[in-house]
């Protein structure tokens, strides 16, 4: 199994071995929010066309090479030596636009009991979102 770490969480996926990160289109969408459509790889209103001259490197047989797309979209990624763990990040420009919009990015994190808490649970209250660390 291959692990994909994305903004949507941590996913165990059934990737093809070999170069890149080939996932079934459904699995790719569940793990990243990007769906394979006739127009290309899409999320919301945004579609990134498959480059014509290298189509086989991006999508084939209902599968999509997320590594190739991430590289093509200049989105940040990192993977383990064996290619069995991939961190697929959000583009810095998207993060920047989100932050400048001043809409507080939502998140869900666990407390000591493993219970998840989301920022959006507290809509209607002022929130002082404060970080600290033991180190």
């Amino acid at each position, binding site marked *: 199994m291959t692990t994909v770490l994305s903004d949507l969480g941590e996913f165990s996926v059934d990737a093809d071995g070999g170069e890149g990160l080939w996932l079934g289109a459904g699995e790719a969408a569940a793990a990243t929010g990007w769906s394979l459509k006739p127009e290309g790889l899409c999320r919301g209103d945004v579609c990134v066309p498959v480059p014509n001259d290298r189509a086989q490197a991006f999508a084939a047989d209902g599968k999509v090479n997320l590594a190739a797309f991430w590289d093509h979209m200049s989105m940040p990624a990192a993977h383990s030596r064996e290619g069995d763990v991939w961190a697929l990040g959000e583009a810095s420009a998207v*993060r920047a636009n989100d932050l*400048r919009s001043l809409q507080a990015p939502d998140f869900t994190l666990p407390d000591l009991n493993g219970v998840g808490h989301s920022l959006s649970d507290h809509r209607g209250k002022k*929130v002082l979102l404060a970080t600290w660390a033991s180190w």
Partner: protein
Amino acid sequence: MVIAVAMDSREDAARPWIEAAAPAYPALIDRDHRLAELYNMVNVPQAAWIDESGRIVRPAENAGAYEAFRSLDFETMTVPEDKMATAAAAKATYVDAVRDWVLTGRDSSHVFTAEQASARTAVPSEEIARAHCHFRLGQFLLRHDRAEEGREHLAEASRLHPRSWNIWRQAAEVNDMGLAAGPDFWDRVNALGDDYYYPPVDMAGMPK
């Protein structure tokens, strides 16, 4: 409402602090430093003020810390009293400002307009975005007994995002007190020169 988030990859490290404080508000653990990624944070303590509608009225910033520790006398292991007083004043100023916001809301002089808040929002570069991927991957590998490979990714994260104390200190060795404050830490702090470890908060009355 306070939401306190520990930037701690090892839950065991944060647990005793949370249990001792026993806060009435949520005390969360962020082992992958997701919040640092989403809010472009680089150190602790940092905080953002978020209003009732979910809008940021003060973007992530130093939450009233003052770098008194940089005046530590290593022979006596003490910090000069005037620096300690300044640190106390900075913290009190920040906490008073939070109280003022809680009581007066958008009328508080500490609440930024959208234009001001946007202008004060530090946004991530491509390198910073890549750094967070490496950090997250590195933490995953560490949790799965692939320490050597994991540490390589943490080192790469720090290389890509050298201004993040969160990334560097999380990966650094800790002493008996659980602090990443060994010689390497001091070398990095001293390399700051006149630069700040805790940049002064942009707030009326805040000591510099």
